[in-house]
């Protein structure tokens, strides 16, 4: 097998970080596809980027601010309108185990 970029264990770890889960078959397929994609990315190592500032924005801009003035909040019923579950004005989730 050529140049494995990401193992199934790593796929499991990354899936956990991303809060995803996969069935066994799906995982195998994903692992192989991710390896193809990541191998393709290796092209980038050919490029000499010494001293090149990373470009994180398409247009260089600075200092976009708003003034500290209270604007409209949503009525709470609208804030919660899309919630799968809510109670007492709060979003409800399965118990967080601490």
């Amino acid at each position: 097998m050529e140049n494995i970029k990401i193992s199934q264990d790593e796929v499991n770890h990354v899936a956990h970080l991303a809060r995803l889960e996969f069935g066994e078959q799906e995982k195998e397929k994903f692992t192989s596809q991710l390896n193809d994609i990541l191998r393709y990315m290796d092209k980038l190592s050919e490029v000499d980027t010494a001293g090149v500032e990373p470009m994180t924005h398409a247009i260089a801009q600075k200092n976009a601010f708003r003034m500290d003035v209270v604007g409209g909040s949503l009525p709470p019923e609208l804030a919660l309108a899309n919630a799968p579950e809510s109670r007492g004005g709060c979003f409800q989730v399965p118990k967080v185990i601490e």
Partner: protein
Amino acid sequence: MEFEPVIGLEIHAQLLTDTKIFCGCSAKFGAAPNTHTCPVCLGMPGVLPVLNRKVVEFMIKMALATNCAVNRECNFARKNYFYPDLPKGYQISQYALPPAEHGWVDVEFDGRQKRIGITRIHMEEDAGKLMHDEHNPASYVDLNRTGVPLIEIVSEPDIRSAEEAAAYLRRLHEILVYLEICDGNMEEGSFRCDANISLRPRGTEPFGTRAELKNMNSFRNVQRALEYEIKRQQYVLEGGGQVVQETRLWDDTAGVTHSMRGKEEAHDYRYFPDPDLVPIVIDDAWIEEVRKAQPELPLEKRERFMRAYQIPAYDAGVLTTSRALADYYEEVVRLCGEPKIAANWVMGDILRFLNEEKRDIRECPIAPASLAGMIRLIQEGTINGKMAKEVSEAMYKSGKTPQAIIEEKGLVQITDEGALSETIAEIIGKNPAQVEQYRGGKDKVFGFFVGQAMKATQGKANPQMINDLLKKMLAG
């Protein structure tokens, strides 16, 4: 082996802006759940953050007050993790490029002074609040606090004891409150502290393995938790064991720290520059603008009070514990011109009254002008010290001016020499035995005559005149 603790503190201070950091929702504490929310702070699809300029301004204030270098350019980064109180699945924070770094503050403890380094200050958004149901397998999320602006202040690992940590914490708290950028309320969580602590054999350089302490919601708890943790780690190390790098929660009731081991996972926050926000450039003009508006800081004020008002360090310290108290004191001094007497009254009656009712100086019913007026009345001899006590109490209860109270209560000092002479002559006449004793050299009896004179005048006599007249008349 003797161990030395190495402590660094991370402080999160909620900023006193009107609105949240990235949207126009109110940042006020205590509203009904989810009433201070909008699509932006709820993390709804497609919405975008826009930075509240005041947050940057407040950060610069703190940076200047803690001798930090303000960096010309900084940016926001996303800290990615899942939690129900984090609606976007990431917290907007700052990572690689902090806006301020390399600062310090001086703290005093045990009568010594020490400089504690500040690694960095950065801006970020607060998370929401998660509440657990005791009866149902459910938790509830209130996102009012989501997006309330925070600054995080990270200290260097310069702290060597729990007391030192507490002194540093108090100093930062005092500065934040002085700058009026944080209300400093630890119970409501607007001022929070986490600690990193490790031990190393005294005299050695390398740091030991550290534990991170959380959940300490008062100055006292920070100190107690650190004291406990120092003992715990010492015990582990002396027993030949190893300290585990972990997060530990302070349990206030039990007075111990608990490991969160097993419950926390290895974090990988995947920080990267937030593409929705643009870099912040802080130029010299902006820094100057903030510097000009910067209030006098507690230490500067303390020194000025000692110098300008000739009051002792202790007094200056007490009077500058809050900016409002210092302002109050200065206003009283300005109006009465008696710094030392003003200091005694403010530190005495005023603070006592307020403490009894757990009130703040800003709620003090006695206006500075009233206290100054009363001090002037004492100085002019209109009332004596004993009367003044009565006057101050009445002023605190009613909020009335000292003049009004004096009139109401008829509290005017008797300074009529003729009348006082008559009273004294009468007392001398009635007490021949004591006169005999006094004249026989028993000076202590003098106090008896003063008491009699005050009693006869219902305490209204000018004590100095009573003294003078008694001396003269008893001499015969």
